[in-house]
């Protein structure tokens, strides 16, 4: 078939698809509202799902009108992008993988195809086939657009969570007058350790702390970079007149530090947070006495 003719048929079939979509807008939206994708996202009201479905059908009709059924960047999709992103986000929050989401999107095709076949049963089979092909290409493009938006939404979520982690995981706890502690948890990459240092130094100032305990019980790996961050934090605190104690050094970590050849000789270390607190209290001149049942002190 000569090329211009092929282009011509595609042209007429896209326009026919456009008219079909406009004609059957209501029915398509009604059927989609019962498909898992719409049903599970719009749980509150079915009408809302139908409205959302209509918006998607309108977008498809607009794309067909512009003859760009294969183009995910077609202007017609702009209006529904945000809605698709919301739907994608809702599905991924529900724990769906990208593959599952893709097959839910694919499930939108059969109802539309059935309507098209019913609509064009008087038309020549040739025409039906062409319209069906065009429409399936258009649905494929919709799927692509939805997946694209869902994935970029996922990336944005990851970025937000990273920022949240930076904030959340570094509380400074006041253990006693003049003693603060920071329980470190997870990976101490450069960004995290910067936050740790800042919050610790601020706490030293605010609480007039003479001792700061860095507890690394929750740090799975202590390599030379982590050790370097610890030493820098200790040195900075020392400049401000606070002594740092690193606690929570597990046996495996201790052996690894020795083999790695790291010299933590300049840093005060203790095996557990309790030991570190005991040391600090002792240095502050506080006496810990076990109380006997009648309340009197005993040493």
């Amino acid at each position, binding site marked *: 078939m000569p090329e211009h003719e092929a282009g011509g048929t595609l042209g007429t079939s896209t326009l026919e698809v456009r008219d079909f979509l406009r004609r059957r807008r209501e029915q398509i939206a009604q059927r989609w509202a019962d498909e898992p994708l719409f049903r599970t996202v719009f749980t509150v009201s079915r009408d809302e799902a139908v409205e959302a479905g209509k918006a998607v059908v309108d977008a498809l009709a607009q794309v067909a009108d512009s003859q760009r059924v294969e183009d995910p960047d077609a202007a017609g999709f702009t209006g529904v992008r945000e809605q698709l992103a919301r739907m994608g986000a809702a599905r991924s929050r529900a724990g769906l993988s990208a593959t599952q989401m893709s097959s839910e999107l694919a499930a939108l095709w059969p109802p539309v195809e059935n309507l098209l076949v019913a609509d064009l049963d008087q038309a020549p089979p040739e025409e039906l086939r062409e319209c069906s092909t065009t429409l399936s290409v258009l649905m494929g493009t919709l799927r692509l657009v939805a997946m694209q938006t869902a994935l970029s939404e996922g990336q944005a979520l990851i970025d937000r969570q990273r920022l949240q982690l930076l904030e959340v995981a570094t509380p400074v706890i006041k253990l006693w007058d003049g003693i603060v502690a920071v329980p470190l948890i997870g*990976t101490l*990459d*450069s*960004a995290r350790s910067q936050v740790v240092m800042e919050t610790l130094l601020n706490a030293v100032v605010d609480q007039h702390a003479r001792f700061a305990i860095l507890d690394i019980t929750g740090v*799975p*790996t*202590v*390599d*030379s*970079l982590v*050790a*370097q961050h610890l030493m820098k934090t200790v040195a900075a605190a020392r400049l401000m007149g606070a002594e740092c104690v690193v606690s929570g050094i597990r*046996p*495996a*970590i201790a*052996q*690894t530090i020795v*083999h*790695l*050849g*790291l010299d933590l000789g300049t840093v005060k270390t203790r095996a557990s947070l309790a030991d570190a607190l005991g040391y600090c209290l002792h240095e502050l001149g506080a006496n810990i006495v076990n109380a006997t049942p009648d309340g009197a002190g005993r040493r």
Partner: protein
Amino acid sequence: MHTAAGVEACLPIRSDMDLVWVRQHVRQAAARLGFGLVDQTKLVTAASELARNTLVHGGGGQLEVSLVTADGVSGLRLAFSDSGPGIPDLERALSDGYTSGDGLGMGLGGARRLVHDFEVESVPGSGTTVRVTSWVGRPPRPREEV
């Protein structure tokens, strides 16, 4: 003398996030093979140092994890490769306290002390590959040998 039982996994090293994944993967692989807690920690720490070298000095690369056996003992081999500038003076790079960046300079030499077998292949201008192997249940190398 030992046979590689095939590459178990190939991980990219392109960002800080990948380092986290490298550590977790190596820890899980070592635990599955039956490494004790101390040996797991050592191997993970060595992997962390080497992966960071790959990222910082090599400009990114990859890690190949393979399971190996020799004389009935199983082990884990990690091969870190990059196509960065290479190491011009290997002797110096392995010595403690030498650094081309602003680190402590303990990474390469320290990693060598944390594993049983250690080899570096570096061609200036075309990249570096560091291969380390640790064996389940073998005592650490005596310090003199290092």
